[in-house]
Structure formats: structure tokens, C-alpha cells
């Protein structure tokens, strides 16, 4: 006969984990298995833990992350496609006491926004740039991105990315690490609990650098896009480990 379980009342006092205070109740529009939700959660936790809610401004991109402002309960500006770093530059120059960060996908940051990204990094603006790289355009329906791996099939590379036709996948993190204004460049992923814990530490470091005026911090998240990749969440995570990590290796690229 099964033992009768002792009834435990769930009250705030005995709760060991909860929804981050800065995440709104709005149901996220992201597909099941998408990395965005986890990254949002980490950002909300770090801002809350730093006690920075009333002094943080986020800049959201064009792409799947455009509605980040619906989910994290801070002030936000939604930037034109690719221009988030320029928007954030002025915010930090005009409001140096604020924590300013951008949240951008690979199409936004490393295709249409390459110019703004590189020059903001080069000026060493004390902002944090959060870069979600899933090697595809998610919101527009799975087209090839600058980061799409060689051979990878997308809506605009239906036979797989061919370097003769499309050039090579773009590693912008390594590129900006050479710039003197850049303080911290790291590549993370949230595919495993251990990865989530490491990623949170990286975000905290990037945000602290921003507040200490130490120059630009860049946190890349190698991510999945189940819908764009046309895979189940489990298969997408496995594919990310087998194909994305060898080309986009995780870890710190620059840490001064």
C-alpha cells in the first residue's frame, strides 16, 4: 500500500525557485524549444539580482527578439533593423549612469547591422551586446543568414549553403575581439543546465563591465531555431552540439 505523502503547502517561505520577478505574465511568442525564452529569463534574473530594474534600458532588434519588450519589465526601445548598437551608443553617452544593453539576432547584428556593430565596438561604448546566433532568419521564415553553416539548407539556400554562391559563415565575435574598445567577448549556449549557469555568469560580467565603464562586452549565444531548422527541440539541441559548436566553439574569446 502506498504511503500517504505528507501534504506540503507551497508558500513563499519554502519556495526554492520561482519565476524571475522581472519576467511579465505575457505568454511568449517563441516556438517551443527556442533558446530566446531561456536567455530572456537569465537577463531578467541578472538585472533583478543587480537591483538595476529602475536604471536599465534595453534595445530590442528586428527579428524574433523584437518583442523582448513585452516580456522583460524594464524600459525598452525597439530599434530599426540592425541599428540597435547606434541607438544604445547615444543612450549610454547621454545617460552614463544607466545599464544599457542590446538584444540582437544574427541577421540583425551581423548582416544588416554589421557597420553599426563594428563601430560601436570600436568606440568602446560601455554597453552590453547580447547576440543570439541561430544561423538562420527565424521571424521571416527560415532564410539563410550570414552565420548559416556550409551545406545547411534554408529557404534561400534550398540546396545547402554553397560557398561559391554565398561565401562563408561569419564569425563576428572573433572579429570584434581584435578591437581595442572591446573588453569582453564570450560565446555561450543555453542547451544544457550547466550551459545555462555559465551563461548567467557571463551576462552578469557583461552587465557589470557596462556599469563600471569598462568598455564593450559582447555575449554570443549559440542557439537553436527548431522551426527554421525543421527539427524537434531535442534533435535541434543535438544538431547544435554536433554542427554549431565545432564551428562556433564555446568559451571566452577575450577577457581583459
Amino acid at each position, binding site marked *: 500500500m502506498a504511503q500517504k505523502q505528507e501534504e506540503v503547502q507551497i508558500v513563499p517561505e519554502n519556495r526554492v525557485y520561482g519565476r524571475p520577478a522581472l519576467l511579465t505574465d505575457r505568454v511568449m511568442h517563441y516556438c517551443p524549444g527556442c533558446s530566446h525564452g531561456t536567455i530572456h529569463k537569465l537577463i531578467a534574473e541578472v538585472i533583478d539580482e543587480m537591483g538595476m530594474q529602475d536604471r536599465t534600458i534595453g534595445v530590442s532588434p528586428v527579428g524574433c527578439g523584437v518583442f523582448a519588450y513585452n516580456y522583460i519589465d524594464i*524600459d*525598452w*526601445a525597439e*530599434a530599426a533593423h540592425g*541599428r540597435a548598437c*547606434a*541607438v544604445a551608443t547615444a543612450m549610454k553617452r*547621454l545617460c552614463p549612469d544607466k545599464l544599457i544593453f542590446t538584444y540582437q539576432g544574427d541577421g540583425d547584428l551581423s548582416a544588416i547591422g554589421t557597420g*553599426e556593430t563594428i*563601430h560601436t565596438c570600436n568606440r568602446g561604448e560601455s554597453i552590453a551586446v547580447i547576440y543570439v546566433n541561430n544561423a538562420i532568419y527565424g521571424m521571416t521564415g527560415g532564410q539563410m543568414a550570414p552565420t548559416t553553416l556550409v551545406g545547411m539548407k534554408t529557404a534561400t539556400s534550398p540546396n545547402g549553403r554553397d560557398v561559391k554562391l554565398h561565401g562563408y559563415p561569419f564569425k563576428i565575435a572573433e572579429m570584434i575581439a581584435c578591437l581595442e574598445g572591446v573588453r569582453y567577448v564570450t560565446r555561450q549556449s543555453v542547451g544544457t543546465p550547466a550551459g545555462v549557469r555559465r551563461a548567467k555568469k557571463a551576462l552578469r560580467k557583461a552587465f557589470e563591465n557596462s556599469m563600471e565603464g569598462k568598455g564593450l562586452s559582447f555575449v554570443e549565444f549559440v542557439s537553436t531555431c527548431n522551426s527554421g531548422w525543421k527539427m524537434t527541440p531535442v534533435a535541434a539541441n543535438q544538431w547544435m552540439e554536433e554542427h554549431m559548436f565545432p564551428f562556433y566553439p564555446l568559451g571566452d574569446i577575450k577577457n581583459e
Partner: protein
Amino acid sequence: MKEDVRLMKGNEAIAEAAIRSGCDGYFGYPITPQSEVLETLMEMRPWETTGMVVLQAESEIASINMVYGGAACGKRVMTSSSSPGISLMCEGISYIAGAELPCLIVNVQRGGPGLGTIQPSQSDYFQATKGGGHGDYRMIVLAPASVQEMYDFVFDGFDLAFRYRIPTMILSDGVIGQMMEKVVVTRNRGRMSDEEICRQSGDWALTGRKANRQRHVATSLALEPAEMEATNLRLQAKYNEIEQSEVRYDELMTDDADYLIVAFGSSARIASETVQMARKKGLKLGLLRPITLWPFPSERIADLAARMKGILCVELNAGQMIEDVRLAVAGQVAVEHYGRMGGQLFTPGDVYEAVQEKLLKKRRH
């Protein structure tokens, strides 16, 4: 107290006025014929006095998006450029209009299309008053005809931008930007404190989400058609209000005039000489100078048209403002155009001849 009168270029007047109007940030990129704005600011180092930020961006695209970011924080921010650079900014201007943010944009026009010429032109009238960027939006457009107005319109431009949360443009040209004139340097207002920003823009500016308010979001996105239409209706209501309240124009000898010139900016300066010339010869010519190109002085032009024998639009372009004049006149009287393009200017005598050719002779035929 003695007046502070200085001799300066139109572009220098913009820089001087920016600092004295309490501007928080200027973001720009060099382009002829307006580079003296950024050069003068860098020379004056206002970050050491008023704390104003001056930043040379990597492009006009970056400049206007920096303006977007600063404006979203409730700051008094501006940029300046010339025609090809303004084309690059049009996307950003559309976003600023859509997100209902205040800012000041100065266009010291040069001849186009394309890379064109560095010489003066007024061929960006359409771009300034009809859009340039995408979507149903408007900018308030001020057209200075002197270096003094370059100076004064920086103050007025910021005031209008904040009153209506709208991008405001000073549409100048290479003549006004480069020429030197006396300027009465008036007013000196400080930058807004954080408290003043909260007082003035507390219901929308990104100042950090405090416990006593909802989060603020600067955005022009609304995927739901009903929501997007509501945004558009709100914008149109605002534009109607501006059309009712903010029309500005200047007139010269229109009271008894038989013929009327309509001209703005540097063309109006030249045409004012033509009016004097005509009067000496007994021709009753008058001048209406729109100061706001949007909102356009349509009502006043319609009133004047009722008692004119002919109207000549004098512009440094192929005929752009004439479309608004004709809409206002609504067929009451013939409206003709006289212009030069590609950086060429006309003299008061050229304009006088055009009045003879296009208004008087045609009338006799």
C-alpha cells in the same frame, strides 16, 4: 544690456544655437556643404561647459539612429546633414515619427539626384514635406532665409518637436549654410535636468522603470491592424492640430499686389529684391514666403490668390512646392514655375524676367 551681435556662417549659427538651446546631444557625419556644424561643435567643446554630447558617427544611418536612442530617453538631440545624407536617414526619420519622438534634423541642401553637386539647391522639398521615408508620417519643416533664422529655428525647432513629439526639420541650403551674416545671439537656456525630463516627458521617456509606473517602450511596431490603424489615426489627429496651430509665413507688399511670387529660403531672399525692382518699375508684385513648408500656408495662399492676376513659384528645383501652391489655389488663377537646378542660382533680374515672361506675356496672349 548691449546686444551680442556676431558675424557667422549659417552652419556655425546652427552649432552656436545648439549649445545655447540646451541641446543634450549632436550626432553627425561630415558632408559638404554642412560640415561646419560638426566642426564648430568640436571646436567649441560643449561637453566641458554644458555637458552636451557631440559624436561623429560612422554614417548618417548611425547618426539618425543615435538621435532615435537619445530622443527615446527624453533628451534634446539633433543631427545635421546634406541631401544624400538625409536620404540615408529617411528610414530612421520614419521610425522616429512612428515612435512619436522629438528631435531636430538640419538639411543644408545640395543639388541632386544621386551624388549630385555640392552647390545649393532646394530639390529636397518633396523629401522633407511628403515623406522620404515610408508610411503616413509628417515632419514639421522650417525654412530659414537668413543666418539669424538658422540660429532662431534651432530653438523653435526643439520647442515644436517636444510640443508635438514629432521630428522637426530645418530645411536650409548651401547658400544659407555657407554665407556669413550678422546674428543677434540671444537666449541661453540650460540643458534639462533629470527632474525636468521626468516633468516634461514623464509619461513616455525611457528614464528607467520606476516602481510607481509601467514600463515605457519606444516602438513603431503594431502587428495588429486595428492597433496600427489606431496609431495612424492618433498621428493624423496630431498632424491636423499642427496644421491648425503652427503655420508660419512672411509677406512682402502683398496688400495691393496684382501678381504674387511664392518662394521659400534662399529663393525668397532673391525674390524679395525682385519685388523691389518691380515696384520701382510700377509693377505691383508681392511675395509670400512660407516659413513652415509643412504645415503649408495653404489658406493664406488661397485668400491671396482670389485677388491676384497670376502667381509665380520661384524655387531652386524643377517645380516641387508649386504642387502645394496649386492645390491651395485650386484653379482660381494661373500658377507658373520658375527655377534653376543642379546648383545654379538665379538673380533678382532673372526672376523679374520670369515674371514678365510667365505671368504678364502669357496673360496678354
